[in-house]
């Protein structure tokens, strides 16, 4: 295990690389989901508001 973590003396290059990769993968997932949820919530809010006021903007 220690040998594995040591990475033949390259630990300080290999592990930060994998750490950054996980960070970027995680950021991509988190930011996409957050954007999706926000858009969905916004659309539902507008839908609820539009329904009570009975507005119709039509397509475009």
């Amino acid at each position, binding site marked *: 295990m220690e040998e*594995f973590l040591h*990475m*033949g*003396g*390259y630990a300080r*290059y*290999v592990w*930060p*690389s*994998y750490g*950054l*990769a996980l960070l*970027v*993968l995680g*950021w*991509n*997932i988190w*930011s*996409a*989901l957050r*954007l*999706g949820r*926000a*858009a*969905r919530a*916004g*659309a*539902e809010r*507008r*839908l609820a508001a*539009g*329904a009570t006021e009975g507005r*119709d*903007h*039509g*397509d*475009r």
Partner: protein
Amino acid sequence: MGTWTWFHKLASPPHFYRIAGRLIPWFAVPAALLIAGGLYGGLVRAPPDYQQGEAFRIIYVHAPSAWLSLVCYTTMAVAAAVGLIWRIKLAHALAAATAPIGASFALLCLATGSLWGRPMWGTWWEWDARLTSQLILFFLYLGYMALRSAYDDLGRADRASAVLAIVGIVNVPIIHFSVDWWNSLHQGSTVIRKGGPAMPPSMLVPLLMCFAGFTLLYAALACIRVRAEVLERERNATWLRELPPA
């Protein structure tokens, strides 16, 4: 149903919204499995390189992020061109949704390349053809996003940013061939080269898994982001009254 009809249906926002929503797990689940398996194989199963020792394991995050940064740019430029020529808003939405993903992987490619270059070349950075053209790719993404945010009108943002994306595509082949055209510090292609990949299967299979996993992850992320774009762009459209399931 003919291909053209199918394409037109897909380009209609409500259809796209529904289809993309259904596709997300089909991209995301294999992506997660491939990335997990690829990184495990690369870190644990693959033997150390005879020249670079354990440091070569950086390739499993570096090369797939380089690949994805180019795939994203090409997708972005083609989508922007389609949007510009055929006035398909969904294509502009795809281009806009792709930019932050591509930018993040271009940055990851530069950072991991730097971490790999330090022990192998003795330097974090060199103004070398491959490194410089990849840095330009990152700046193209930033420029594209900055240009979009400079316009209040979405249609104008789409058109102006599309022109930038299309012009910037010249950089993509430059990045790919830079190691052949110029005397570069960067090593040549390992996988796509004459005479087949320069790696044994125990090294190559995890790498290919990472390539496939990163690409599928992009597909899943693009579905999520374009769906969000569609909801914003179609905010007054009647189909949203019956919002398809999340």
